[in-house]
């Protein structure tokens, strides 16, 4: 039995659940945090979404059948939580998703937890022009250095499709950065 399967069994057992959950959070918190942060951009929002993700995982683990890997299931929940968070935020503010993206990037200028320079800001602007899926694939491949096979499990897309998305994303970013200069 793999380590992951053992962890899932412990999470489903009331007697070992608390200790297993601590192991789960400590194992995945950093990876999930960076995944979420690159979607919502702001640290406080990323922290909220990360907590919601773990709470959803804790409450839904009973229904986890092990048909996919635990980490890909958690990544899916995190992605879903982050995108839902942004949708709710734009709805509450009465603005479109595009307008929200612009505001989020604008806010990076005064964000104490953004240490990027002009090139990083330009990159965020370029990323905002991409369709959601291309943006996700780019961040997962380039910054999180995930393998196509791993991304494929999370986004439930073929490896070939992902390669095409990544190529397109890189080309579009390059063209945006070149035009912006």
């Amino acid at each position, binding site marked *: 039995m793999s380590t992951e399967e053992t962890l899932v069994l412990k999470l489903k057992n009331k007697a070992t659940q608390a200790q297993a959950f601590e192991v789960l959070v400590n194992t995945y918190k950093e990876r999930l945090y960076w995944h979420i942060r690159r979607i919502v951009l702001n640290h406080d929002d990323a922290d909220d979404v990360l907590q919601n993700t773990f709470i959803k995982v804790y409450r839904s683990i009973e229904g986890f059948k092990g048909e996919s890997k635990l980490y890909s299931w958690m990544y899916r929940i995190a992605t879903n939580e982050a995108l839902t968070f942004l949708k709710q935020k734009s709805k509450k503010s009465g603005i479109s998703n595009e307008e929200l993206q612009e505001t989020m990037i604008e806010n990076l200028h005064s964000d104490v937890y*953004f240490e990027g320079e002009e090139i990083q*800001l330009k990159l965020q602007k370029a990323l905002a022009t991409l369709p959601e899926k291309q943006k996700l694939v780019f961040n997962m491949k380039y910054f999180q250095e995930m393998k196509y096979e791993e991304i494929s499990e999370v986004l439930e897309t073929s490896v070939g499709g992902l390669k095409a998305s990544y190529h397109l994303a890189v*080309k579009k970013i390059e063209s945006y950065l070149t035009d912006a200069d």
Partner: protein
Amino acid sequence: MNQDHKNKFKTPEGYFESFNERLFARLETEEGEPNTDFLPQKDGFGIPEHYFDTVYPSVQSQLEKRAPKVISFNRYRTFYYAAAAVAVLLVLTLGWNWNNSPDLNFEDLASTDIEAYFENNEVGLSSYEIAETVNLEDISITDFTEKSLQEESILEYLDEHVEDVEDLDLNYEELEY
């Protein structure tokens, strides 16, 4: 050294044996990964000091805060009995048939009202959760195929939800004729 006896051209030793390997290596380089030299190595995002140490305690405290509260039924049992007795007495005294207004059912709600409710209220359910909640056993594929959708509705949906033509996942080969 390989030699073509007709043309007298020569190739290096093992050239054809290693040709496939070299071809695939080049394809891998040219088509495998796009050039990303122009991209910054880091995205510039930072975090507060020792942030990751605080994650588990915060999640734990959130779980405790959001745990559904269990209210002991026994504590209020006497009040429930008393309230039920009063209700029965009132019904018997005032008669049953005092309310002639028709009962309202779920079917009486206009679909626009339901849509407006979901639109204006934060139901707190993501599409993922709704998909988990809906019982698929009561739904068959014919529910979707037999009901014809207005072309206008389809176009409106695509306009609102599809950001890129790639999202449609069209198989262009099948469309060629």
